[in-house]
């Protein structure tokens, strides 16, 4: 049975984690551990893909919560996410065989990497509340250990701390949600919970808790502020795994609770989900545009993509609640598809960032440039990833966004007014996010890979090893494949979608020319394969024609200097100057950007200084005030620990008198 195979994979990964402790001292330890993780992830991947259309398999073990036991279940939804996670795991392992060789302290990474993979799989397999939260929190713990792997840098410690607290916050909220679902009877297994859906009001609260709990893990605005700290702090293959894999597990958690355990949705459930998703999509990418640290920019872009996924989920909820199951299936498929796509290209992007980091030693884009010369293959793979995440046809990112737009276009059929007004606004934000994402990745790619090197490290960068290139090229290939053959993916996800929404998209397998048709052919259709063929064909055609009939001569010359000779490297656009127009459009309102330019008076030869201050409003408006409040409160309370013995006795005395008074007045 598939679920047994998956559990054996988990067990083997855990064994590998234990084994990694002694292995990390050995020279060959790193390839062995990553190689093992690669093989296990591939086995799991194959198993999950095979389980996509299979009936759900369950298994109960006498572990975990007494009385309930540990229940595991592998159904369509789990299989979709297992496939995504294993895909991320396999590619990260492959990449790390090369990348992990240069780790300073392998002992702090090797044991936790397989454990992290195992915990993620376990979340997806869990079929009772305790196992689910146990695995969920273990996942946080393992990834926390990876975030703090480079523990000597103070900012990493801070990132890890914020991350762990936020992870725990999310877990506690989910615990509350499960508590509400479990009710006084204390039903913890999902089978029982499914049989007892909560009352309407309780359901609303559970939805809120699940949205906050799973959303904080996924990085929804405004709880996202930990994510851009934590994801980049880890080693790059782990960053990829966190951004691409773990956020999907969070999405799965939301799906499992809200779509599966809570019975039929209420009409308004889509509203908060849609609003949070749209806000995350737009704000996430705007933040990403402002970052000059390449990994931070990627982390913020994760927030954007999670926002897109949640918009899809919100639409699916709204449709399903309002008796439009087919539309719900379309929205849910779009969300799942986007989750897959994001896993693919975000892994690839982090791998690329890791390769750059390994080759140059810098994460700051302002010190990169011209890497396309030294690292052509990496640059090629990154180009595909950047195009894919910018939702450009014929790559995969476009397909899922297109499907979500198609779902939005069905929404006038929704009866409720709130949704009617919200959905187009969400659509506009989504379109804005897509366009800004393109801007963001033009900037990211253009500044770091194109132009001239902005520093000696960038100039000396050399291509990375074969393992890393292999992982990157494989993912790039998958990005293209998912883009040109989306019908396969949609059909593969159909069983999972059907189980949650009660409907499915029209089968795509029989459509001529491998097109995809979300609703009906007269309404809309798209064919990635033909777009690719047409674009490639016409480009080839015109190239051939020009080379044949016109000129093919090439001459190298200095760049045109507009009459200003000796244009130094500093005259290039920088990451922050590239973002300046957009910063001026959105910055003042969204993150109170402040630019200070210190221009020396004429005749003064001192350099002009430019300083930019950006504030993440979630950090300044939510995290910091809370932290300050806790600190101030603890300061107040702390005074109570320095009283005299007499005062302590007075406390005891006071408590006694109070209780006696209660007895006297009550009794």
């Amino acid at each position, binding site marked *: 049975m598939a679920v047994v195979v998956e559990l054996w994979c988990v067990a083997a990964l855990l064994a590998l984690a234990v084994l990694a402790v002694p292995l990390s001292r050995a020279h060959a330890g790193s390839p062995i551990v990553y190689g093992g993780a690669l093989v296990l992830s591939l086995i799991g991947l194959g198993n999950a893909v095979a389980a996509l259309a299979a009936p759900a398999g369950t298994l109960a073990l006498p572990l975990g919560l007494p009385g309930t036991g540990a229940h595991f279940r592998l159904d369509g939804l789990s299989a979709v996410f297992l496939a995504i996670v294993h895909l991320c795991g396999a590619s990260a392992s492959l990449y790390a065989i090369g990348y992990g060789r240069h780790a300073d302290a392998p002992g702090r990474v090797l044991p936790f990497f397989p454990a992290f993979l195992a915990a993620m799989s376990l979340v997806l397999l869990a079929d009772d509340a305790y196992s689910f939260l146990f695995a969920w929190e273990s996942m946080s713990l393992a990834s926390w250990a990876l975030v703090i792997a480079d523990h000597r840098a103070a900012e990493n410690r801070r990132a890890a701390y914020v991350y762990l607290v936020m992870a725990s916050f999310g877990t506690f909220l989910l615990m509350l949600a499960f508590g509400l679902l479990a009710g006084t009877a204390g039903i913890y297994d999902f089978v029982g919970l499914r049989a007892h859906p909560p009352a309407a009001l309780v359901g609303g609260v559970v939805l809120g808790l699940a949205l906050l709990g799973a959303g904080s893990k996924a990085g929804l605005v405004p709880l996202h502020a930990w994510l851009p700290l934590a994801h980049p702090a880890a080693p790059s293959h782990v960053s990829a795994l966190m951004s691409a894999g773990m956020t999907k597990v969070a999405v799965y958690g939301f799906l499992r609770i809200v779509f599966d355990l809570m019975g039929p949705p209420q009409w308004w459930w889509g509203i908060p989900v849609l609003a949070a998703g749209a806000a995350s999509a737009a704000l996430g990418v705007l933040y990403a545009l402002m970052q000059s640290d390449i990994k931070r920019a990627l982390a913020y872009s994760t927030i954007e993509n999670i926002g897109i996924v949640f918009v899809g989920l919100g639409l699916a909820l709204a449709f399903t609640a309002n008796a439009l199951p087919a539309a719900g299936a379309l929205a849910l498929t779009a969300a799942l598809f986007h989750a897959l796509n994001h896993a693919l290209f975000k892994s690839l992007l982090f791998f690329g960032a890791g390769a750059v980091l390994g080759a140059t030693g810098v994460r700051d884009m302002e010190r990169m440039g011209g890497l396309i010369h030294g690292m052509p293959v990496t640059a090629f793979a990154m180009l595909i990833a950047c195009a894919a995440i910018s939702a450009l046809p014929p790559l995969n990112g476009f397909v899922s966004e297109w499907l979500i737009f198609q779902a939005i276009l069905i929404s006038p059929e929704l009866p409720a007014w709130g949704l009617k007004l919200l959905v187009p606004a969400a659509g506009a934000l989504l379109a804005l996010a897509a366009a800004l994402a393109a801007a963001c990745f033009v900037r990211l790619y253009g500044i770091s890979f194109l132009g001239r090197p902005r520093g000696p490290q960038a100039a000396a960068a050399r291509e990375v090893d074969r393992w890393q290139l292999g992982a990157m090229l494989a993912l790039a290939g998958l990005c293209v494949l998912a883009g040109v053959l989306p019908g396969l993916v949609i059909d593969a996800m159909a069983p999972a979608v059907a189980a949650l929404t009660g409907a499915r998209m029209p089968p795509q397998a029989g459509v001529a020319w491998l097109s995809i048709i979300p609703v009906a052919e007269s309404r809309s259709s798209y064919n990635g394969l033909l777009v690719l063929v047409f674009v490639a064909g016409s480009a080839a055609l015109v190239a051939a024609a020009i080379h044949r009939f016109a000129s093919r001569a090439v001459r190298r010359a200095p760049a045109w200097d507009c009459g200003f000779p000796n244009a130094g490297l500093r005259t290039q656009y920088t990451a922050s100057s590239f973002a300046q127009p957009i910063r001026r459009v959105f910055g003042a309102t969204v993150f109170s950007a402040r630019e200070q330019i210190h221009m020396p008076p004429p005749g003064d030869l001192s350099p002009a200084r430019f300083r930019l201050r950006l504030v993440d409003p979630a950090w300044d408006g939510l995290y910091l005030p809370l932290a300050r409040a806790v600190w101030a409160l603890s300061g107040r309370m*702390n005074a109570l*620990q*320095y*009283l*005299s*013995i*007499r005062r302590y*006795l*007075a406390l*005891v*005395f006071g408590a*006694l*008198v109070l209780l*006696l*008074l209660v*007895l*006297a007045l009550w*009794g």
Partner: protein
Amino acid sequence: MGSLVFDVAHLLAGGLVLLSLVMLYQDRLPALIRMFALQAVVLTLSVSWQAYAQGAPHLYVTAAIALAFKAIIIPIALQRIVVRLGLHREVETALSIGPTMVAGIALVALSMVVMLRVTAEADPLAREDLAFALSVVLLGLLMMVTRRNAVSQVVGFMSLENGLILAAAGAKGMPLVVEISVAFSVLVAFIVIGIFLFRIRERFDTVDSAALDRFREGQR
């Protein structure tokens, strides 16, 4: 048992409460210690009366302990400490006498109210005794809370303990009363020895327990 038994017990217990209030009123240590010795004597009488009334000879042991230990040995020891540490001046109270007395009266009232809720099925003797004992306990605690001085806190604690012994002796047939009184004597002895042994005055310059807390090193 006639009403005489009840009246005598009542009178003695009431005397204990009264003495507790008087102790609250004292603002000089030597006088406080003397009042405490007097309270111990009254306690001895009360316990002896209970021993007689209940026909429980072992309570005489408790009475003897109370007399020997609390009415004689401890007061003498405390007196010595006071003299040695030069404390026979005013008692430093945290709360001035007036409010303390008001609080004391309120506590007595509170203990009465609380006890009155207890159904009358319980032995009336025990019930009244308990009300007084509770008053003594609360007043003892009040003294510990309102005095800054370690010696007067010890006295407050012992007065509290007097209330306990009163209650234990009043509980007819209660086992282990003697053991408890012994245990408490040991406790009190520890406290007194503690003050003596660690020469808190020498080390901290004052027996004021607030000073102990001020002593702590860079915790803040």
